[in-house]
């Protein structure tokens, strides 16, 4: 088939759409669902700006066919915050530690951080940077991003305590 009716849960909302089978999950999110927080910045899956959660696992949405995400659940940057007022600890930490400049890498960074921290990762500067090798930043030099990840780990640890 060249077109497929897919349905999935995106940020906890059910979604139904007919798509061309060659549609990348990233482009389905950005164009069909107008969730433009997820970005695209490379041609070969290296930059990570397209990172989202697929069934709870962080993936590069430019390396997943929307057709293959049929029947599954997706979480994007737009689905991180509880509400307008209550940001996810990772988002809050990025604000508190000034972990961004131009912001283009930020959604992808945040999604990767959330995944790693929710699985119990306790980073320091070096291990934070290593864990984020799949997300490229051209502005910051990564140190404040790592600081944000460390702060978020601490906040999330407190929240769970």
């Amino acid at each position: 088939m060249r077109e497929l009716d897919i349905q999935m849960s995106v940020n906890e909302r059910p979604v139904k759409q007919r798509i061309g089978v060659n549609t990348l999950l990233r482009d389905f999110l950005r164009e069909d669902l107008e969730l433009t927080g997820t970005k695209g910045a490379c041609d070969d899956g290296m930059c990570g700006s397209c990172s989202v959660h697929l069934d709870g696992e962080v993936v590069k949405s430019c390396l997943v066919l929307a057709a293959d995400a049929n029947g599954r659940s997706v979480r994007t940057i737009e689905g991180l915050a509880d509400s307008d007022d209550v940001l996810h600890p990772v988002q809050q930490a990025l604000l508190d530690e000034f972990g961004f400049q131009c912001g283009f890498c930020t959604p992808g960074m945040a999604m990767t951080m959330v995944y790693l921290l929710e699985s119990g990762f306790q980073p320091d500067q070096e291990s934070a940077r290593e864990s984020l090798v799949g997300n490229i930043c051209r502005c910051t030099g990564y140190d404040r991003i790592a600081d944000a990840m460390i702060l978020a780990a601490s906040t999330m640890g407190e929240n769970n305590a």
Partner: protein
Amino acid sequence: MKSFDYKAPETVDETVSLLAEFGSDAKLLAGGQSLLVLMRQRLLAPGVVIALSHVADLGDIELNGSSSIGSMVRYKTLSQGAIGSALPLLARSAGSVGSVHIRNLGTVGGALAHCDPSGDVPTALMVLGAQYEALSSRGAKTYDSHDFSVGLFETQLAEDELLVRVAVPPQPEGASIGYQRFSYREGEYPMAVAACRLEWDSNGRCSAATVAVGGGDAFPKRLPGVEAGLVGFDFDSGDLESLLQDVARPDLYAAADIRGGAAWKEKVVMVTLGRALREGHALGQGRVDA
């Protein structure tokens, strides 16, 4: 990317029938971490894409002396848990690939079929003596890892064959492993990968070795010259670099590319190989914790 006919089989038999029908015009979509890049760059434009994500029975793992790993098992699963303890070399190689994103989706079957010249997992599996079970409408076939890769991104797999399972035989008692890789930046395709499995005699000398490198040729390969040369080698007193210069270097045919010239890349492979062998030695002698 160009459109295609999308098939979503649910069983191995369905998949095999589709391959029989569409053969050369079809590509199997496993993790997608390599295939989709090639399709987006318009280097590949298959008329038919057969998605494996819903096929049952390709994700099973059995560990009991020998190991059986379904071809759709993800890098992430290979790098953790029971496999991590049973086959540490496989776990380390799988855990080194790309980033967490890639490891969540990339599969062992995809890695083997794609056959990147410096693939971590194919290199490691060669050293473990793995065998690869494939299925087509013509029947089942088993490939040996040591000659499965035959060219640049080319394996012995026929166009209509589906890799179903990776079988890893029981590993020799007391053998130690070594695994090293080199890339300019973490998370990138490595320039060199080296894996080894070393067995030891009662005098602490190497009694048998399987050694493989990625990045030393158009495809990952075993180095029989090194394997033979290591028998009886005394790591404490022997000159490993000289030995490798004699028995490894002649077997390397790295291709110059954006990362460096052939000579430089071969040197990097040599150094990486030396490090892997030394690591195998240290682990074998209980000098270092695995």
